[in-house]
């Protein structure tokens, strides 16, 4: 045991004396720290924004409730906040939250006309991408590992010590094993330490932290093994490194880009604009159609409202909202196809990621952190469900109960976000 420790201590000493290794390790620590810091601050901004929005949303609606009493006007002017709370792990994997909206306000009008509105961030910044922990581990760490391990054997060879070292060393491990272990542990510590601190601050569960750590360590071990193995018989360190970097470029850029190209060519999705157009045409045509053209299909959906569809004038709110819903219904097929195509693309991207380790890690972590497009579509579904709840709340007032009392408004359904944590 003590023999092992001496070996490790010796290598530790060697490591600290190599300037470029120390620089690499320090840079990894700084980058990982920056990624965690910015991830945490991004998430805390998102949380604060949601809290502010909740307050503003309530007071905004209170004003509408005070000003309007007519059920139709109330529904027209009341907007309702929906949001998707970042999970405890989101700080490490910001995922698609910069592209998909995580906050939305809707009213009772046709949903298809509202749901694609995006509250996007600065597009030029989104295009450059953000630094988060997943990015540091999946894209940068392999490069650092390649730089750390590619010349393990080659450097000793070129300086003529290799054969001497091998013959005098007590065992294979005593020499290479200890060296590899020390470097591997050092890089893991530098990369993961900020994540543990971040996990603690963000209140991630021990299970989540352990799971993410496991994935990351396996991934880093893969690159270490690859670098060591590749460099075993080489004499020229740069040659080893260039092939490894080539492999990295292949995994991180070429395979994903080609995969993306192939998937986009093979999966046909309706154009987003067509959904909006269909919905808009349906809603606008309804004004000129006989009322029954809207009401008949409507009561198939809501048979309980059938006795109340007669209209006294040419305009009544119940008819107005009924044709809004019929507009959604007309666009439903396209809209589903649009979402199905997105799901299909995500699924196919899963197959591609099996041949690209960086992608695989990114996918697994964004899935765990609930920040991928699956999470985004789940949130969209929550908005749809909530919109349905609102319809069910308003319809009785619009159709037969008359204008709601202020007390009744208290019972208006509130959006509840349930995606606190995944799995």
């Amino acid at each position, binding site marked *: 045991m003590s023999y092992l420790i001496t070996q490790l201590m010796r290598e530790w000493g060697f490591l600290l004396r190599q300037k470029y290794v120390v620089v690499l390790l320090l840079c990894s620590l700084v980058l990982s720290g920056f990624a965690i810091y910015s991830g945490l601050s991004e998430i805390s901004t998102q949380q604060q924004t949601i809290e502010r929005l909740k307050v503003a949303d309530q007071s905004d609606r209170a004003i509408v409730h005070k000003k309007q009493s007519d059920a139709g006007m109330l529904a027209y002017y009341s907007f309702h906040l929906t949001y998707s709370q970042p999970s405890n792990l989101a700080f490490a994997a910001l995922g698609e939250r910069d592209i998909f909206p995580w906050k939305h306000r809707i009213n009772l009008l046709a949903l298809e006309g509202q749901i694609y509105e995006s509250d996007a961030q600065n597009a030029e910044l989104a*295009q450059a991408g953000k630094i988060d922990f997943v990015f540091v581990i999946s894209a940068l760490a392999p490069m650092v590992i390649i730089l750390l391990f590619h010349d393990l054997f080659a450097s000793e060879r070129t300086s003529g010590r290799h054969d001497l070292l091998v013959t005098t060393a007590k065992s294979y491990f005593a020499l290479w094993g200890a060296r590899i272990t020390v470097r591997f542990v050092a890089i893991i510590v530098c990369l993961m330490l900020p994540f543990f601190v971040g996990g603690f601050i963000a209140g991630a569960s021990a299970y989540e932290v352990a799971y993410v750590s496991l994935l990351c360590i396996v991934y880093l071990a893969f690159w270490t093994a690859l670098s060591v193995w590749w460099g075993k018989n080489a004499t020229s360190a740069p040659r080893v*490194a*260039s092939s490894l970097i080539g492999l990295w470029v292949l995994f991180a850029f070429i395979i994903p880009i080609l995969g*993306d190209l192939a998937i986009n060519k093979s999966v046909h999705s309706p154009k987003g604009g067509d959904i909006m157009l269909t919905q808009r045409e349906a809603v606008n045509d309804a004004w000129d159609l006989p009322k029954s053209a809207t009401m008949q299909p409507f009561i198939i959906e809501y048979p309980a409202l059938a006795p109340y569809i007669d209209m006294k004038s040419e305009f009544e709110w119940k008819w107005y909202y009924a044709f809004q819903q019929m507009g959604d219904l007309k666009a439903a097929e396209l809209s589903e196809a649009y979402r199905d195509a997105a799901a299909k693309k995500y699924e196919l991207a899963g197959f591609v990621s099996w041949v690209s380790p960086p992608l695989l890690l990114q996918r697994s972590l964004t899935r765990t952190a609930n920040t991928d497009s699956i999470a985004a579509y789940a949130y969209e579904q929550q908005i749809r469900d909530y919109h349905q709840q609102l319809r069910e709340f308003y319809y009785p007032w619009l159709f037969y109960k008359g204008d709601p009392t202020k007390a009744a408004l208290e019972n208006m359904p509130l959006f509840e976000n349930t995606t606190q944590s995944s799995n």
Partner: protein
Amino acid sequence: MSINNFSKVVIVAKDEWRYWLRSKLAMTVLAIGLLLTLSSVVVTAITMLELSHDRHELQSNAEQSFVDQPDRHPHRMVHYGHYAFRTPSPLSTLDPGIDAYTGNSIFLEGHRQNSAMFADQRQGTALTKLGSLTPAFIVQTLAPLLLILIGYSSISRERESQTLSYLLAQGTSGITLITGKGLALLSVVGLVIAPLAISALFTVSAGESLLAVASFVVGYALYLTVWVLLILLASSVFSKNSGSFTALAFVWILLCIVMPRVASTSASTAVPSAGKIETDFAVKAELRKLGDGHNTNDPAFKQFKQSLLKKYNVNSIDELPVNFRGLVASESEAKQANVLNQFAELRMQSELKQTQVSRYFGWVSPMVAIRSLSMIVVGTSIETHHRFLRETEQLRFDFVQGLNKIHIEELDYKDDMNRNANAAATKKARVSAQNWQILQDFNFNVDSADVRAQRSVPAFLQLLLWIVVLVGGIKFLGKRLL
């Protein structure tokens, strides 16, 4: 430099090429580089041409379906709305920039400023988070790496194999040697840029100005020159190939992969901008003060009513020669647009500020500099998007007010007030479909080449500064090579 020296430089460069032609690594790298650039140019060009075609078609379809609407109450058309599509600029076949992130269509309707919709990224596979197959990405990110792989050993190799002292002893000065190696690497740069330059020249026939094309090509040439200089510098500083290689690979990660993201992350932290929903609360509060344009009895319009009665010298709104409801709609639309535009302007300003902060990082990373230079010159930067938003807002305002004008002049006030009484009354409160011919043809054009060139000046300066500093460093080292 004398003729003699110049011929020496050429000899060194030729010799470097001979070395590459014999090296499997260099040839593979060169082939991959050319293949990537070529395929990215072709793929992106096809995609953007399709997009451009699609959007032209969608635009004329949208205009046609507007005009084809039946007789209606004019306010129905205000809500029917209209679409505007952004057609990509010719040069954007080489750098689509933020196109995939902003979405490219916008729904225009009364009383609202919608955001652009259906960003491609929302239908994406999440595979291209690190990069996509666009010429811009390939040349900005991967080309430097290829140059490093070919050139890292250009001088350190001579030193390691101890040929450097011979060369210097035989009267080849350090500067000549470095210049020769640099010339060889620059010829590689020429090879990489050639497909880019040729396809850029083709866009001239599609109406792109020569100035933009020239700035674009020169920008990329300067950028890759920075990398050539960095490689020469590292190769002269380090005594070993491995040292020079490790250092260059590390610098590449920092400058090309890390810095752009640090720039965008820092920018969004340094200049926080409230999202659209959050600003909407403030907007709504302001709008509420203006009153509801659908409701002529809204107390907010009392004064407006008085002034109208006075202007036309009548006692009641029934006596007005024009439709009071239309007047209220028009009046309130104008006031609302005013408020909406104020907030939109604020938002754009804060986005510009953010972008500015991220562009400052161009002083520390040539990659950030070329990124902004390229997007600005091509016309796919945030400024162009803002221009699109402003122009579509003008389009929106014009057609809505056009419809309101029809509402005022063509529709009788009594018929209008009576419109919901029965089916016949509803029919009466309509105007002829002939009135829908008010749409202006919408054609989005990016800023003029002059404006784009002007905007790209800081980025050019950033690249030039890099070149000056690096040339200075190399000159200093070249004198004391060994």
